[in-house]
């Protein structure tokens, strides 16, 4: 009898002995996949010190820390669920051209690793981080109350009170606080108008989940924690999530645009960013990529997208250039320097055109990076500076630049910073007497952009930029395109009629 009792007593241990090699097999396979696929950023030992680590912002996670940022278990449950680990590795559709964690270097692996391999890596990560299974179930972020106008209004009020300090009065992440995570790294509050940059994707549900769970290891708290002074009820969290989703600006999401279409107007061109006339034209938006081609390179950019509108009349053309920047870089300003954590350069933006745009699509262009020895570019650079805010530069490559008088070409610019967004208007006559870009109606003219965030140490060749896109001064609608189809239709009908009448 005693023996049976003993066996029953040690049965769980026996079971463990049986299971251990099996689960071990999972983590072994996971380790092999990890070393091949993940070590480049997260490091061979998982501490986030891979060769790429110091060039990345945000930094690759230290997987041995046992702190998991993107989880769905409640705030008082430190362990992520198995699905949480799986979801971060597998990735999701994170907007145009990216399937990993939004606006990070972590790609989605579901197109490369099988489901089994991802589960093995997740098992290995649990081992690395010393993670146990969570004791509390994940929160539910579906079936929230609908976002009525009244709820959004409530959300807006609560947002001003609880969120604006970090996320800014208009949600552009331009709070007046310098934030850091538990590992001492600099973090930036999310720009809520850009849902395409959200780590786990946009939408009301995702915002609700992040507000409820918080982001462990960062200064984003859980708003469901009753011990917090910022606690919000479930309904209030849904209201704030509804408001946050309502300020998203999908019209300024980059991805598919290739042409800035300047609209023709007969009136006076808007000359300030606030002019109501801009509302009549649509944005073209582009990704900004850091300059990592030559010279001083920028690896951790702070700016990610730029949006442009353009209008023209018979004499002039005006561009409205907008980009979100969490910091208004004011050189030598104490507050700016405190947020930047050092010297501040002026924020800046530039438009670039080939001095002589090609007549055909396959003709040679100057290099998009400031031209080359064969092709000159004209650069219009505006700076947030009192002295010399506008420069006009002819360039044949970064080492061959000549500055020219902007006033002589009739070029003017003025910029306004408001709640995390720069808006700069450039204006110039369509035609000038100097040999430089001339704007002709109906033609496709190459155009490229660059921007500098002075609070991120960006100056000179350290900046973000775009490749060549197109500018087209849209001609007024051609009515003959509608006349001939009508004529063709009438003729066809007349022919039918004649044939019918002639039939016996």
């Amino acid at each position, binding site marked *: 009898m005693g023996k049976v009792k003993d066996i029953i007593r040690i049965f769980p241990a026996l079971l463990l002995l049986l299971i251990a090699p099996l689960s071990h097999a999972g983590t072994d396979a996971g380790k092999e996949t990890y070393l091949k696929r993940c070590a480049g950023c997260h490091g061979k030992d998982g501490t986030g010190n891979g060769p790429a680590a110091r060039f990345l912002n945000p930094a690759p996670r230290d997987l041995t820390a046992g702190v998991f940022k993107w989880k769905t278990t409640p705030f008082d449950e430190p362990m992520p669920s198995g699905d949480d680990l799986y979801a971060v590795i597998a990735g999701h559709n994170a907007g145009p051209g990216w399937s*990993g964690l939004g606006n990070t*270097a972590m*790609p989605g692996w579901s197109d490369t690793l099988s489901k089994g391999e991802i589960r093995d890596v997740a098992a290995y990560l649990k081992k690395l981080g010393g993670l146990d299974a969570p004791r509390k179930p994940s929160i539910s972020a579906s079936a929230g109350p609908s976002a009525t106008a009244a709820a959004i209004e409530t959300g807006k009020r609560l947002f001003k009170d609880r969120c604006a300090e970090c996320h800014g009065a208009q949600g552009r992440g331009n709070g007046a606080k310098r934030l850091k995570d538990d590992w001492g790294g600099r973090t930036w509050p999310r720009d809520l108008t850009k849902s395409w940059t959200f780590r786990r994707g946009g939408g009301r549900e995702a915002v609700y989940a992040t507000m409820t769970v918080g982001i462990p290891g960062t200064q984003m708290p859980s708003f469901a924690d009753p011990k917090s002074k910022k606690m919000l009820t479930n309904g209030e969290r849904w209201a704030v999530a509804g408001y946050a989703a309502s300020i998203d600006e999908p019209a300024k999401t980059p991805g598919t645009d290739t042409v800035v279409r300047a609209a023709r107007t007969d009136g006076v061109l808007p000359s300030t960013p606030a002019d109501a006339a801009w509302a009549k034209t649509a944005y073209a938006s582009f990704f900004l990529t850091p300059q990592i081609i030559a010279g001083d390179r920028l690896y951790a950019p702070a700016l990610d997208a730029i949006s442009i509108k353009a209008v023209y009349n018979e004499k002039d053309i005006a561009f409205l250039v907008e980009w979100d920047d969490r910091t208004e870089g004011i050189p030598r300003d104490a507050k700016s320097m405190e947020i930047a954590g050092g010297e501040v350069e002026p924020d800046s933006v530039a438009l670039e055109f080939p001095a002589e745009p090609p007549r055909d699509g*396959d003709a040679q262009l100057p*290099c998009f*990076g400031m031209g080359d020895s064969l092709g000159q570019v004209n650069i219009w650079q505006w700076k947030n500076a009192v002295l010399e805010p506008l420069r006009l530069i002819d360039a044949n490559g970064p080492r061959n630049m000549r500055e020219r008088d902007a006033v002589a070409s009739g070029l003017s610019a003025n910029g306004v910073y408001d709640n995390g967004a720069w808006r700069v208007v450039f204006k110039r006559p369509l035609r000038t007497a100097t040999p430089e870009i001339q704007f002709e109606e109906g033609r496709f003219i190459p155009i490229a952009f660059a921007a500098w965030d002075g609070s991120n140490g960006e100056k000179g060749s350290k900046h973000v930029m775009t490749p060549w896109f197109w500018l087209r001064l849209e001609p007024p609608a051609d009515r*003959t*395109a509608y006349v001939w*189809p009508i004529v063709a239709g009438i003729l066809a009908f007349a022919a039918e009629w004649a044939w019918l009448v002639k039939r016996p």
Partner: protein
Amino acid sequence: MPRIVKFSLIIIAVYCLLKIPGVFFTRPIPASVLSVYLLFAVVATLLAMTATGEGATGFIEPIASLFADPSKRAARNIVLVIVPIAAAWIAYAALRPDDAPPPIVRSIHPAPPAAFTAYGRTIELASLTNPYRASEKENPSQFRAAVDEGAEIYFKNCFYCHGAKLDGAGHYARGLSPSPVPFRGTDTIAQLQESYVFWRVAKGGPGLPREGGPWLSAMPAWEDALTEDEAWKVVTFIYDYTGNRPRSWAK
């Protein structure tokens, strides 16, 4: 089943068949080729169906009856309305203002030069070989070490654009045009000799011949930032990681 219905079904089936490679395998048949195939199908089916006198009458009869048979008035009127609308649409499509930007014509794998200058000397492509390739069989541990070093160089310099998955979709790739080249898959480095890949790494976008559009490429000339040894290690790594084999001269 009336012959005209049979005819329509055959043409629709052929059209669907021709669309399969594009819809399911992301390898669409070019529209111009597709329309030629479709034309052949229409002509061949028409010929086969109207080869006999009986067949021809059977084919034309439903169309003729549309106008002869008073009970088919409604169908006839619909045809009478559709024809002018189709004529107008064709005219509109031909005259519609073309506001698509001009296409960028550029060769992705332009012909390499016979020789190029890098690292202070003239390098001939024909005799250029990867110094680590021989060690793959002769000294595997030396080869593994080169691959591991190549991986480190890749993650410090290349992965921003060419991606952690070597799929050409790094986190900066979406802001670049043309897109960075993927290394996995069988249609890029698997089709090239290592000497060609080394030339591309060393000379980058600025070293492209004119047909490669050097003014569009964001690829740096790596001879300025990587040593020759480092460049070879990274080339060795991208083949090893993707399981691709470099092309070589038949022996």
